[in-house]
C-alpha cells in the first residue's frame, strides 16, 4: 500500500525536475501600462515594505488615505520585509504588486534583472512631472536608463551632537572639519578607573551604528565606481584622506581594542538604549530619522545637528552629505499593475501624502512641492537635513549590477585597516579595485 501511494508522487517529481532543468524565467517582460489610464482603479494590491513598529503605522495610515481616495482598491500590506526576502520572493515569481526597499543599492539588480518592471510606459502615459524630483534622487532611482523605481522619501546623513556635553567641554559649535572633530572627540572622551571608556566623543570604528564607508565618503568627495562599472576606489584620493583620519583618531582615543570593548556594550540602535540618546556618545553620525526616535524615546535630550565635517583639502564640500532613499517599484509578477502604479504614484508624487509620510517617520520628502510645503513639520534639527538634501554636492552610492557587493568587498578590507592589520594603504586600495573588478565580471554574461 505504501508503494502505491508514493508512486503517485513520482510523475509530479519528474515533472519538477524537468521544470527546474530549464531554470530561469520570464526575464524582463513584466507588465506594462495600458494604452490609456483606467478611469477608476480596482482590485487588490499586495504591498511589501520593510518598516516595522511606529514607522509601519505611519505607512499604514497613508495607505488608508489611498484606499479612501480609491474605494475600489484594497491594499494588503506586509511590513518588515527586508530586501533579501523581497528579491527572493519576486525572483521566485511571487505576485508582489508593489515593493518598497530602503536600499538604493538594490536598484541596479532590481532594474537589470527585471524584478522591478520598467515604469517609463506609466510615467509617459500619465505625464508624471519628474522635474519635481531632485537630480541626485533621480540618479539613484534608475539604472542604465531603466527607471524601475520611484523615490518615496529619502534618508540624509549628518552629525548629531549633544549640546550639554559639548558646552561642558567648552564648545559652542559643532566641528566643521574632520580634524576639529578629532580634537573635540579626544577632549570629550572620559575613562573609567580601569582604563575603559566611560564617555566617548566620537566613535571612529566602522560598523558602529551608521558608521559606514558610504556615509563618510562625501566628507572627501570619495568615489566608488567609474562610468563603466569598475572600481574607482584606488584612484580616488578621498578614501586615503578619510582612512588616514580614521586611523589617527583611533590611535588618539586609545587604540582599537579599547574602542571595540566600548562598542561591545552598545545599546540597540533603534531602542531607547542608543548610545547617543543615553549620552554615552557625544557626537554621532546618523540619519534624519533619528530626530523622530529622539522625540519619541529621549525627549529631554538637548541636541543639535550639522552636516558631517569635511576632510582637509575638501573644505568646500562642507554642507554635503550622504543621501539614500526608499524606493518603490512594481514586481514583475504583479497581478494588478494599474492599481500598483496608482499606489506608487500616490506615495511618491502626491505632495500631501509625502508630507504626511515625512512628518510621520521624519524622512526627507523626495518631491519639491512637499519639501516647500508649509505643512511639513521642520524642527531646527530636521532643517539641517533638508539643507544637506538640497546641497548639490551631496551624493549617494552608485547603483551597480552586483548590488552592494562592491561595498562589502571594501568593508572587509577597512575592517582589517581599522584594526591596524594593514600597513600599505595604497596597496590595499589597489587590491580592493582588483577584487571589485573581478566581482563585476560575475554578472557579465
Amino acid at each position, binding site marked *: 500500500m*505504501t508503494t502505491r501511494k508514493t508512486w503517485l508522487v513520482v510523475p509530479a517529481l519528474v515533472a519538477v525536475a524537468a521544470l527546474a532543468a530549464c531554470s530561469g524565467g520570464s526575464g524582463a517582460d513584466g507588465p506594462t501600462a495600458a494604452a490609456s489610464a483606467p478611469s477608476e482603479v480596482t482590485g487588490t494590491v499586495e504591498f511589501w515594505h520593510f518598516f516595522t513598529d511606529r514607522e509601519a503605522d505611519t505607512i499604514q495610515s497613508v495607505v488608508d488615505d489611498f484606499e479612501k481616495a480609491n474605494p475600489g482598491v484594497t491594499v494588503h500590506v506586509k511590513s518588515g520585509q527586508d530586501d533579501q526576502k523581497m528579491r527572493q*520572493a519576486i525572483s521566485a515569481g511571487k505576485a508582489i504588486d508593489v515593493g518598497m526597499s530602503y536600499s538604493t543599492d538594490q536598484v541596479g539588480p532590481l532594474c537589470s534583472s527585471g524584478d522591478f518592471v520598467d515604469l517609463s510606459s506609466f510615467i509617459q502615459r500619465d505625464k508624471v512631472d519628474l522635474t519635481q524630483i531632485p537630480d541626485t534622487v533621480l540618479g539613484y532611482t534608475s539604472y542604465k536608463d531603466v527607471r524601475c523605481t520611484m523615490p518615496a522619501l529619502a534618508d540624509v546623513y549628518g552629525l548629531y551632537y549633544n549640546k550639554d556635553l559639548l558646552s561642558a567641554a567648552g564648545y559652542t559649535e559643532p566641528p566643521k572639519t574632520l580634524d576639529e572633530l578629532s580634537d573635540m572627540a579626544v577632549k570629550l572622551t572620559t575613562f573609567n578607573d580601569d582604563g575603559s571608556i566611560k564617555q566617548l566623543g566620537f566613535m571612529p570604528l566602522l560598523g558602529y551604528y551608521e558608521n559606514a564607508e558610504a556615509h563618510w565618503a562625501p566628507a572627501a568627495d570619495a568615489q566608488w565606481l567609474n562610468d563603466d562599472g569598475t572600481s574607482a576606489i584606488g584612484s580616488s584620493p578621498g578614501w586615503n584622506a578619510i582612512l588616514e583620519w580614521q586611523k589617527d583618531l583611533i590611535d588618539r582615543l586609545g587604540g582599537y581594542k579599547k574602542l571595540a570593548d566600548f562598542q561591545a556594550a552598545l545599546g540597540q540602535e533603534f531602542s531607547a*538604549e542608543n548610545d547617543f540618546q543615553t549620552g554615552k556618545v557625544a557626537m554621532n553620525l546618523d540619519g534624519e530619522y533619528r530626530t523622530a526616535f529622539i522625540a519619541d524615546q529621549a525627549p529631554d535630550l538637548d541636541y543639535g545637528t550639522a552636516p558631517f565635517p569635511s576632510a582637509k583639502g575638501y573644505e568646500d564640500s562642507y554642507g554635503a552629505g550622504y543621501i539614500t532613499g526608499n524606493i518603490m517599484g512594481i514586481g514583475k509578477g504583479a497581478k494588478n499593475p494599474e492599481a500598483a502604479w496608482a499606489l506608487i504614484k500616490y506615495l511618491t508624487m502626491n505632495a500631501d501624502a509625502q508630507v504626511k509620510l515625512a512628518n510621520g517617520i521624519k524622512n526627507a520628502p523626495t518631491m519639491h512641492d512637499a519639501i516647500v510645503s508649509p505643512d511639513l513639520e521642520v524642527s531646527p534639527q530636521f532643517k539641517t537635513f533638508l539643507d544637506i538634501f538640497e546641497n548639490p554636492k551631496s551624493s549617494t552610492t552608485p547603483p551597480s549590477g552586483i548590488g552592494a557587493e562592491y561595498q562589502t568587498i571594501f568593508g572587509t578590507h577597512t575592517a582589517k585597516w581599522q584594526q591596524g592589520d594593514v600597513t600599505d594603504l595604497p596597496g590595499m586600495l589597489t587590491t580592493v579595485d582588483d577584487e571589485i573588478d573581478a566581482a563585476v565580471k560575475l554578472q557579465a554574461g
Partner: protein
Amino acid sequence: MNRRSSSTLVWVADHAVFLALAVVFLAPFAFILLTSVMSPARAGTSFGWPTSFHWDNYAEVFHRLPMLKYTGNSFLYAGLATLFMLVSSVPAAYAMARIQFRGSGVLLVAVIGMMLLPPQVTSVPLYVMWSKLGLTGTLWPLILPNLLGDAFSIFLLRQFFLTIPKEYSEAARLDGCGELRTLLRVIVPMAKPGIAATAIFMFFASWNDYYGPLLYTSENESAWPVSYALAQFRGAHSVDWNLTMAATVIAMVPVLIIFFLAQRIFVQGVTLTGVKG
C-alpha cells in the same frame, strides 16, 4: 576504571565531579529561567537574582508575537515530515537490511553519502526548483522531500532492522508472505522501538531546523516555525533580554516534554546511531 573503588576519598572525588558537571550543564538553564521572569530594567543591567518575578513576560511574548502560529507551523513541519519519512523510509531500510539484491553495497554508500552531504551544496538548484513550483514561502519544500526517503532515517532504520534475528523474516517468507507483508506483519511490530526512535529523531531535527526555514520561509512570516522565529526575535524587535529568554523557554518546552515522555526509546536510539549495527 571498572574497579570497585573502596576508598572514601575516591568516592568524594567522584561525587564532586558529578556535582560540578551537573552545575555546569544546568547553570545556563537556571540563568535563562531567572532572566525570563525579570523586569526589563533588572535584565538590562547586570545579572543577579530577580528583584520581582514577572511571569507576565510570557504573556507579553505571546502578545508581541504569534507564538501559537509559529508553534503550529513547527508541529506541521515536524509532524508531516516524520509521517512522510516513515512511509517512504521504512520499506527502503527493510530492503537494504533484509533483501539481498544487486547493487546493495553501492546503495549503502550512496545513502551514507547523502546523509553526510552538506545542505548548502544543493541549495541553489533546489531553491530554483521549488520556486518554479511556487512553493517557496511555505514549509512544503522541507516536508515533501521526505516522501522520497530521508537518508539518515533509512540508515538508522536499517541498523535497527539488522538487529532483528533473520530467522523471523525467513519464517515469514517460508509461510508464503511477500516482502511487503513480511515487513508489515513481522518486522515492523518487532522494530517498534527503533522506528519510534527514528521518528523522534526526525521530529526533533525538523523542529530544530534553522537553515531550511531560513531558506524557504523567511519572506513569509505566517509560515515561520518557532526556531526560526526565535532567531528573528531579538534582531527585528530590539527587545529586552528578559522577553528573549522567555521566548527561548517557550521554544524549548515542547522538545523537553517529548524527551521526558520517550526518554528510554530516545537514548536507545541515539546509542544505536553511532555504534554497532
